[in-house]
C-alpha cells in the first residue's frame, strides 16, 4: 500500500533545463517520486515526497531542489521550545524506520 501524506505541500522543484537524465534521482528516492522519460527526469507524484533531500544532494547537475528536514512533530515542537533547528532524536531500529 502506498501511503500519501498531505496534498500538494512539499517544496520539491525540478529544473528540466539543467537535467541530463542521468537517473541518479531515481536511484536515491525512497518513494519513487521520479521517473526518467524521454531522457529527462519527471516528477510523477509530488505527494509521495517526504523532503528527505536525497535527490537534491545527489543530482550532479543541481537540477533538483528541495528544502530538506525531519517530518517529525516532536522534533518540530522541540525546535520551537529550544529555538533550534528541528532534528530527530532517533529511535529507529532497523534501517527502514525513522526518527
Amino acid at each position: 500500500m502506498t501511503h500519501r501524506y498531505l496534498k500538494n505541500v512539499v517544496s520539491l522543484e525540478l529544473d528540466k533545463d539543467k537535467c541530463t537524465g542521468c537517473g541518479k534521482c531515481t536511484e536515491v528516492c525512497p518513494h519513487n517520486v521520479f521517473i526518467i522519460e524521454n531522457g529527462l527526469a519527471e516528477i510523477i507524484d509530488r505527494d509521495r515526497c517526504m523532503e528527505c533531500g536525497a535527490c537534491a544532494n545527489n543530482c550532479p547537475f543541481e537540477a533538483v531542489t528541495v528544502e530538506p528536514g525531519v517530518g517529525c512533530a516532536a522534533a518540530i515542537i522541540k525546535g520551537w521550545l529550544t529555538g533550534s533547528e528541528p532534528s530527530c532524536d532517533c529511535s529507529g531500529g532497523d534501517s527502514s524506520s525513522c526518527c
Partner: protein
Amino acid sequence: MQINSTTTQLRFNDIIGSWKARWGINRMNYKVDPGVYSVGAPDKESPVLVTANYKLTFDSLRKELKGLDVWILVIDTKGINVWCAAGKGTFDTEEIVGRIGKMGLAEIVSHRIIVLPQLGAPGVSAHELTKRTGFRVIYGPVRAKDIKEFLRAGMKATTEMREVRFGFVDRLVLTPMELVGSIKTSVAIFAVMFLLNLIAAKPFGVVDLYAFVGTVIAGSVITPILLPWIPGRAFAWKGWLMGMIWVVTVIILNGWPISATFGTIRGIGYLLALPAVSAFIAMNFTGSSTYTSPTGVLKEMKFALPLMVISAGAGIIALLISLFI
C-alpha cells in the same frame, strides 16, 4: 590498518540486545567499532558495502550475507542507524571520505566502487564523494534482505527494492516505543488523578482509568497499526478519530446519557479531553513514519495544535467541575 572478521550468524546476545533496543532499554549505547570487516573470504575484487555503526543496522546487514565474500566498511555514525544518521549529518560525505582514507580502502580492493545504503543518500553527495576519493558510488537497496539479489544482478536494484514501505509489520514493531513514550506522561496524569481523588466529592473510578488507558492505546498502538485504513491524511486527525470512537464506546457502554455511571459533565469532559490526547500522541507518530514531509507536518501542527489545546483545556475544566458537584 586492521581488518576484523565477522559472521553472518547472530548469537543469542545479539537477539536479546535488539529486543532491548526496541523497548528503549539502553538503546543509545549499542554500537560496533568503525572499520573494515570481512565476511567470508573476500579478496581484492570483492564488493564493499558501507554501513552505520549502530549494532542493529550492522547485524541486520551481516545476517543477510550468508555465503557471500564481501567487505563491510563501518563508518562512525555515533551509533545511529543509517537513515537517521543521514538526516543528522553523521552519515555524510565527509565521514565516508575520511574513513576510506584512514582504512586504506584503496589498498584493500583493486576496484573503485562502493555500495552505499540507499537510505544514506540524504546525507551524501555521490558525485562529490567520487571526486574526492576516486570511488564510484552505487546505492544499494533499501532493505538488507535484498542485498544478495542486488549483487547477483550486477549491482542493480529494482524499483521495488528502492522503495521505502511502511507496511503492517513495520508499523507494528514501532508500537512498543510509542507506548513506552507515552507512559511517562500517563504516570504523571494518574498521579494528578490520584491526588484529586483525595479531595473530590465524586472521585475517579475504574471507568475513568480504562477510558484513559484506552485513549493512550488508541493513539500509540491502534492508530499506527490501522494507519492507511483510517480515512483522511493528517495523523492528528486519524488519532483524534480513533480516540473519539473509543470514548464514545466507553460512554455508551456505561449507559450514558440515560443512566450514566458518571455524570453528564464528566462525559462531556471526556469527549473533549481524551480524543485530543490520542490526536497528540498520533501526531507524534509522524516522526516514526517513513513518508511524512516536514512541510506537511508543520502545516498539520499549525492547524491541529491550537485545537488540541483548546479541546483538552475545556475537557479538563469539565472534568474538574464534575469532581466537585
